[in-house]
């Protein structure tokens, strides 16, 4: 992988690790952005890892753009030799697939969709060669996903599915973006799933909704008191399909301050993962459930 560098005006350096998405490209970006943070380079104000790229914002009054570019290039070539192992977390996210709220929204914006006569789930199942919504939900929730970027709006995770490329779910974005998406919608566009952290515009297909808030600017939710955003790049997510009564119970638990998300520390090795993906994912799930 040859990183392509570009200036984003006089305050940003943009680095595209690879044009297409892969865990290898994500890991390279994550290692470099960690190295840039550790290097505490004078004048660097923001370090933003993304899916297969990253961005560094800087103050050109404190560091010459060409000097920072040279430093990033040096860190970029040093990263080739790093072992792709990270200490991270695995987080279980309950999902009510095929829920009434995203259903109402997708019907409202049907004329902006590729398939005005079906639902987003039916459409995604068909174009991914799966025989119906239940098979699709199984494909979506049976393997874990990597948080490969956080952003767009506050705390929104982009998630990359941890299966072989030929099994990865892909779906186009809406033909024209919606002006409304329910808060905590589980969406999908390109090869990425996401959780919409706030209500607002969006173009991803809508599959379901989680009862578990992932962003709280007021920091009153128990597990968001330390920081208002739940996710960091490198986190691993496992969806847990739930029914309506479990959803309602979880919402009540969140409101009462007794909802306890399932989050475990875990170490992830890209090399071991690539050797036997399914076996490695089973091991990750074992960590989640304490065995």
């Amino acid at each position: 992988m040859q990183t392509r560098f570009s200036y984003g005006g006089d305050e940003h350096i943009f680095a595209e690790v690879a044009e297409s998405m892969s865990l290898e490209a994500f890991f390279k970006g994550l290692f470099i952005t960690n190295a840039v943070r550790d290097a505490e380079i004078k004048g660097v104000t923001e370090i933003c890892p993304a899916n297969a790229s990253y961005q560094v914002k800087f103050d050109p009054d404190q560091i010459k753009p060409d000097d920072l570019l040279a430093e990033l290039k040096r860190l970029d070539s040093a990263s080739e030799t790093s072992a792709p192992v990270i200490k991270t977390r695995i987080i279980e996210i309950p999902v009510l697939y095929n829920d009434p709220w995203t259903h109402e929204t997708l019907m409202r914006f049907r004329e902006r969709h590729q398939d005005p006569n079906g639902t987003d789930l039916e459409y995604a199942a068909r174009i991914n060669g799966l025989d119906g919504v239940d098979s699709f939900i199984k494909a979506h929730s049976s393997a874990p996903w990597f948080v490969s970027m956080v952003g767009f709006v506050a705390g929104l995770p982009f998630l990359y599915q941890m299966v072989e490329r030929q099994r990865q779910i892909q779906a186009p974005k809406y033909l024209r973006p919606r002006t409304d998406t329910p808060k905590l919608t589980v969406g999908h566009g390109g090869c990425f799933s996401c959780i919409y952290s706030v209500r607002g515009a969006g173009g991803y297909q809508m599959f379901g909704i989680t009862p578990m808030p992932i962003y709280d600017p007021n920091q009153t939710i128990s597990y968001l008191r330390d920081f208002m955003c739940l996710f960091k790049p490198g986190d691993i997510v496992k969806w847990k399909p739930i029914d309506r009564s479990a959803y309602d119970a979880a919402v009540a638990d969140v409101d009462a301050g007794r909802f306890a998300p399932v989050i475990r520390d875990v170490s992830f090795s890209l090399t071991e993962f690539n050797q036997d993906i399914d076996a490695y994912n089973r091991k990750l799930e074992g960590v989640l459930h304490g065995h």
Partner: protein
Amino acid sequence: MAIKVLKPGLATTVQDLGRPGYYHIGIPLSGGMDRHALAAANLLVGNAEGAAVLEAVFMGPELEFTDDALVAITGAELPPKLDGEPRETWTSFKVKRGQKLSFDFLKQGARGYIAIAGGIDVPLVLGSRSTYALGGLGGFKGRKLEAGDELPIGNAGAAVKDGRSVAKDLRGLPAAMPTELRVMPGLYWHRITETAGNGFFSGTWKVAPEADRIGYRFRGGKPLEFVPREPPFGAGSDPSNITDACYPYGSIQVPGGTEPIVLHRDAVSGGGYFMVGTVIAADMDLIGQLQPNTPVRFVKVGMDEALAARKSRAELLGKLRGALA
């Protein structure tokens, strides 16, 4: 001391110089769209340059003061009135307890800055008092002002004289039309053809009605033509799609190749559209003062010109500080 919001205007928010450090989790810088005007308003009333002020867009609010205060309005030509009596913009004036501040129709520019000695004293959130409305964060309850809100005002420091004013040449507003915005090509510039690239810089664009703190959309120039390619895995099938990446402030994305959007202080931090380049930092204040339908040309510059423009912008602020010291 507080001010009561009688009418909120169109979209009046509390802003300071912003909230750096959280863009990597999707929380943008925020802060005044026209930082020079924001600093000027503060300096006129004896505040620190980055104290929290009100940013009003297109239409001013109506405010009632519960105590005597010193006030200044800068930025757009949004003429202030005190109990119906006209006052000057870019000039500090006294307000007596119980008086009402309102505004006449907008004459020029887009965003006015209302500074009050002592500053708007809403709580600091992640180090800033700026409102990020999309995330419901900061400012007054994370949102634009509504009638009935009461804004707390901090204690004013050493009193400064009223009637001080900023000379025209220190106001940093656009001098001519069509407005020129200087752009460094880059990012995904290679995705469009050479003809399309030339067309982008030779055409005249107009500010579209969709122009807010997140981004300014432009219309009327030639649609961009893309260099053919196989879509990379993860990007999506439209030629304007990329594998979702970070967006620099000032970057110009062109969804579908038709209408450029320049991201501003409340930018979405990333997404799946390619970008042709970035408006230089020195011209970002200017964008915040553009009204819909304003004709704009994008002018191609390199890093050296961007840094020279940055330096001259900093010198302008230096002179402003000197004049109001």
